[in-house]
């Protein structure tokens, strides 16, 4: 098993050779399979071989994406209708595959990108279907006073948009109550929601005509041309899937998509970067649901009949399994998964049973009806799900993060870089990385952060007791104390994770206590975490780009239409992020996944991510923890440069006294939630209360 598992795990679809060779392979294969399909119009194998063209195009990695897309469009938009257009079955299957591809891509936004388990996705599909069915069959006239009769097929086109809108609204409406839920719990609530929608569709006779369903749903019409042949739906669906793929791709590689992934990877860290959870989650639900809404309208028209049995929990599960089978979060994977599951369901197993039957008829044996494989599609399907989940949990085409080609000359790999060159490189990188924040007139005199009598209780325990602290601009201010002194609790109150029970916190003269973490981030405070909280499945560069989130202005429309503003902003952000990575010494690792970086580099990446927000106050929570002396020395150098080179104010929690003493302007000492000492390093070092706190009474 493990051998098979390993080879399954490793397999990647990639054609050999350069661009020309790959293009030639693709074209030759296309011609071959197209002729095959033409010659054997009944052959399921020829059809599957033809569909493999898409996989081949995907594997031709040497080709530019635009060429790949063009080739795929030619294959499905031109060649396929030419060679198989006369066969309604293949056209119908291709349409169904396309519908499921669109559904899977929509659900992938919710589940794959945003990490929100949704098991009731079919509810939105149902909504879109019923929307068109109710208005095009005259059912609406029975319960809406202002509607008379049935709408004609011409209304199909605006209803695509209505389906989109209603789907999005429903998605957002479902999103609101479940915002607080995670993982399995979310999965179950959405499952319940999906079932409720189906049961209501079956029960609310006056609106949906209940279990009897709505026959006679209108087919689309253009002017006076009546559509409705399989090939018409094929083209409509194909165009929409093209649009949806484009949209999904643009979303994924944008500020919005990064926010989704960041939220999926680590919610607290995402909030600390200024990502608004509520808006981001609702947007994910709405986007995913809108895809389903549109497809529902098409489905209703294509079937001509809508009833609740089309929208069972099994449908939702089917779409989920497409995503998992294909590879969560991976666009090509999800598309492939949708194709494989759909084909398996409606074609391969049926085909197998046909084939066995005809074989039986020819050779005079008969398969007992109870053993007919077509009856056991669920068994085979279950087996496939199980085997895939266990042996290749990443899916057929595991998600790969986008590799960004940087305009800069490639820097030497971090590990090989001689340390002597670091300083000049850093100065240069810094110069590009950030316009040095204009230092205030007299930074040292300016109280940037004021903590006034702040108190925090957990149950009966007082974690922070009326602490006073002033952090001045341009200082490195350290917060030290024994374990459990309340340092991180204080950090969490400054950054909005906890709300103080008493006292207040002022930043630049304005109160910030009680604000949400994302609002604190917007005010100009950025942080790192004690136990590194990177977005592990995103690249180093993407991590830093998430850090820039609050400075990016492009909205959904900018992203969808790739407006000039968005492109400019994005390329600036990538440049800036790359510079920051160089600045912290991670040049050359931009496209590495965060989880693959060594420990010390992860710490630096976290700092780079925090810097990307261009904070005026940087909070570092034990940045040297777990570092070896060499890494610690480099960190010291970095912090020093942040202060003197970039003029940044830093609030630091640290246990390593060498670090603290050598770098701090001011040190505040906490013990059991109370401030016991404050002052310059030398002052604090000799404070008996501090020595007592650290070494115990006997040492004094």
């Amino acid at each position, binding site marked *: 098993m493990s051998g098979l598992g390993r080879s399954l795990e490793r397999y990647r679809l990639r054609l050999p050779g350069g661009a020309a060779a790959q293009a030639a392979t693709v074209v030759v294969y296309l011609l071959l399979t197209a002729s095959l399909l033409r010659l054997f119009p009944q052959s399921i194998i020829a059809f599957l071989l033809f569909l493999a063209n898409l996989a081949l195009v995907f594997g031709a990695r040497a080709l530019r994406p635009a060429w790949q897309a063009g080739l795929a469009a030619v294959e499905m938009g031109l060649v396929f209708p030419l060679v198989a257009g006369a066969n309604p079955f293949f056209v119908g299957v291709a349409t169904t595959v396309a519908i499921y591809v669109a559904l899977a891509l929509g659900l992938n936004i919710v589940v794959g990108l945003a990490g929100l*388990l949704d098991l009731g996705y079919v509810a939105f599909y149902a909504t879109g279907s019923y929307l068109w069915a109710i208005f095009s069959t005259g059912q609406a006239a029975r319960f809406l006073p202002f509607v008379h009769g049935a709408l004609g097929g011409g209304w199909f086109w605006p209803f695509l948009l209505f389906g989109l809108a209603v789907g999005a609204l429903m998605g957002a409406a479902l999103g609101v109550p479940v915002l607080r*839920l995670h993982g399995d*719990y979310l999965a179950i609530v959405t499952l319940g929601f999906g079932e409720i929608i189906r049961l209501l569709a079956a029960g609310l006779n006056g609106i949906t005509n209940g279990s009897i369903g709505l026959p006679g749903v209108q087919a689309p019409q253009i002017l006076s041309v009546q559509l409705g042949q399989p090939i018409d739906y094929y083209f409509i669906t194909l165009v929409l899937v093209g649009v949806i793929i484009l949209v999904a791709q643009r979303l994924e590689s944008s500020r919005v998509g990064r926010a989704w992934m960041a939220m999926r990877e680590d919610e607290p860290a995402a909030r600390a970067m200024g990502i608004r959870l509520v808006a981001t989650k609702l947007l994910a639900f709405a986007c995913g649901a809108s895809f389903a809404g549109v497809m529902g309208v098409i489905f209703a028209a294509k079937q001509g009949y809508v009833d609740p049995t089309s929208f069972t929990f099994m449908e939702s599960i089917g779409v989920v399994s497409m995503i998992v089978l294909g590879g969560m979060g991976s666009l090509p994977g999800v598309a492939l998964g949708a194709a494989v599951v759909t084909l398996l369901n409606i074609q391969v197993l049926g085909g197998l049973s046909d084939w066995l039957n005809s074989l039986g008829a020819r050779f005079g044996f008969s398969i007992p009806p*109870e053993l007919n494989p077509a009856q056991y599609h669920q068994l085979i399907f279950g087996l496939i799900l199980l085997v895939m989940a266990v042996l290749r949990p990443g899916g057929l085409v595991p998600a790969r993060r986008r590799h960004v080609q940087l305009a800069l000359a490639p820097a030497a790999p971090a590990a090989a870089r001689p340390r002597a060159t670091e300083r000049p490189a850093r100065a240069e990188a810094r110069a590009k990385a950030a316009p040095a924040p204009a230092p205030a007139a007299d930074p040292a005199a300016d109280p940037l952060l004021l903590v006034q009598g702040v108190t925090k209780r957990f149950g009966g325990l007082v974690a922070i007791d009326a602490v006073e602290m002033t952090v001045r601009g341009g200082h490195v201010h350290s917060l030290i104390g024994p374990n459990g002194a309340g340092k991180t609790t204080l950090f969490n109150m400054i950054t909005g994770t906890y709300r103080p029970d008493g006292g207040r916190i002022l930043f630049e003269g304005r109160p910030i206590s009680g604000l949400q973490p994302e609002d604190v981030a917007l005010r100009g405070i950025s942080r790192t975490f004690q136990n590194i909280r990177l977005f592990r499945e995103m690249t180093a560069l993407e991590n830093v780009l998430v850090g820039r989130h609050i400075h990016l202005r492009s909205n959904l429309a900018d992203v969808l239409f790739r407006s000039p503003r968005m492109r400019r902003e994005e390329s600036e952000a990538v440049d800036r992020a790359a510079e920051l990575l160089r600045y912290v010494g991670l040049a050359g690792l931009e496209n590495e996944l965060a989880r693959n970086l060594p420990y010390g580099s992860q710490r630096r990446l976290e700092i780079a991510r925090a810097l990307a927000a261009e904070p005026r106050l940087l909070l570092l929570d034990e940045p040297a923890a777990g570092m070896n002396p060499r890494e610690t020395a480099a960190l010291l150098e970095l912090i020093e440069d942040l202060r003197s080179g970039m003029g940044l104010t830093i609030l630091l929690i640290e246990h390593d006294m060498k670090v603290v003493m050598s770098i701090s302007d001011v040190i505040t000492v906490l013990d059991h939630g109370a401030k016991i000492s404050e002052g310059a390093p030398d002052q604090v070092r000799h404070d008996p209360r501090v020595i007592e706190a650290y070494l115990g009474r006997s040492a004094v």
Partner: protein
Amino acid sequence: MSSTLQTLPQLVLDGLVVGFVYALIAVGYTMVYGVLKLINFAHGDVFMVGAFVGTEVLRALTAGGRPLSPWALLLAAVVAAAAVTALLGAGIERVAYRPLRQAPTLILLVSAIGVSFLLEDLVRLVESIHLGKFVLPVPTVFATVYRIHVAGLQNPLTIRLNSIVVVVASILMMVGLTLFVGRTRPGKAMRAVAEDRTTAALQGIDVNAIIALTFLVGSGMGGAAGALFATQYTLVTPYMGFDIGIKAFTAAVVGGIGNIPGAFLGGILLGVLEQVGGGFIGTKFQNVVAFAILVLVLVLLPSGLLGERVQEGA
């Protein structure tokens, strides 16, 4: 007295019986969730397998000439169902869940759904070969019915001996389980693993063995519930596990997932609410009531009635 009020006592009584069955299944969900933080989607189908094993045992024992006493029949069916499903549950854990301990939740969920499909069609295949059909009527075990006349009610309250047996058996099993988890060494180890797997391992607890044991016990309870259910509702199909499984899961959630008494309370509550709700707003929306309870409890009271708050972001 209005007619809805007239029917209320009978509805509550029937709800209680269903509720006890839900409770037994819910225990399996809740135990597995406790140790693995996993919704064992295949549990409803483990229940279904239990129902089939019970039915087959009853068929075999009633087929011969001299019928056994109903008590022996029931005991044989329940024990056989529990034994088979206990092993089945442990096997499922070994094959479908253990390799995926570190994987994201969704992968586990899909693996569980895979198992669920597999079980449904496997049972169907086996029964199709064995009997040529897969929707099986269940032989009657206890035919006795009690009718209790209550002053003020037009109709006597009806309760079957079988229902009483189901309730009593459920209570016995719950008491046994509670003692097992609370008093015995393996039971305590189970709680330790549920609390903190890593620490439990450091203290020398064989975590894998305990997880396997959890599946063994939880699935066995589910299987026993299947056999009891079969005697109560007289028909078994390979596809019966899904709806009941979801409802039992709802029961586990209502009571507070991870909490055994909570599962029990949730099951009974759900059973009664469903019956009474169906009685008042129409059986058409009986399942809507169940799912609405599920959604509302999760949204408003995610820790359930007796559960502890689930740690976020941990």
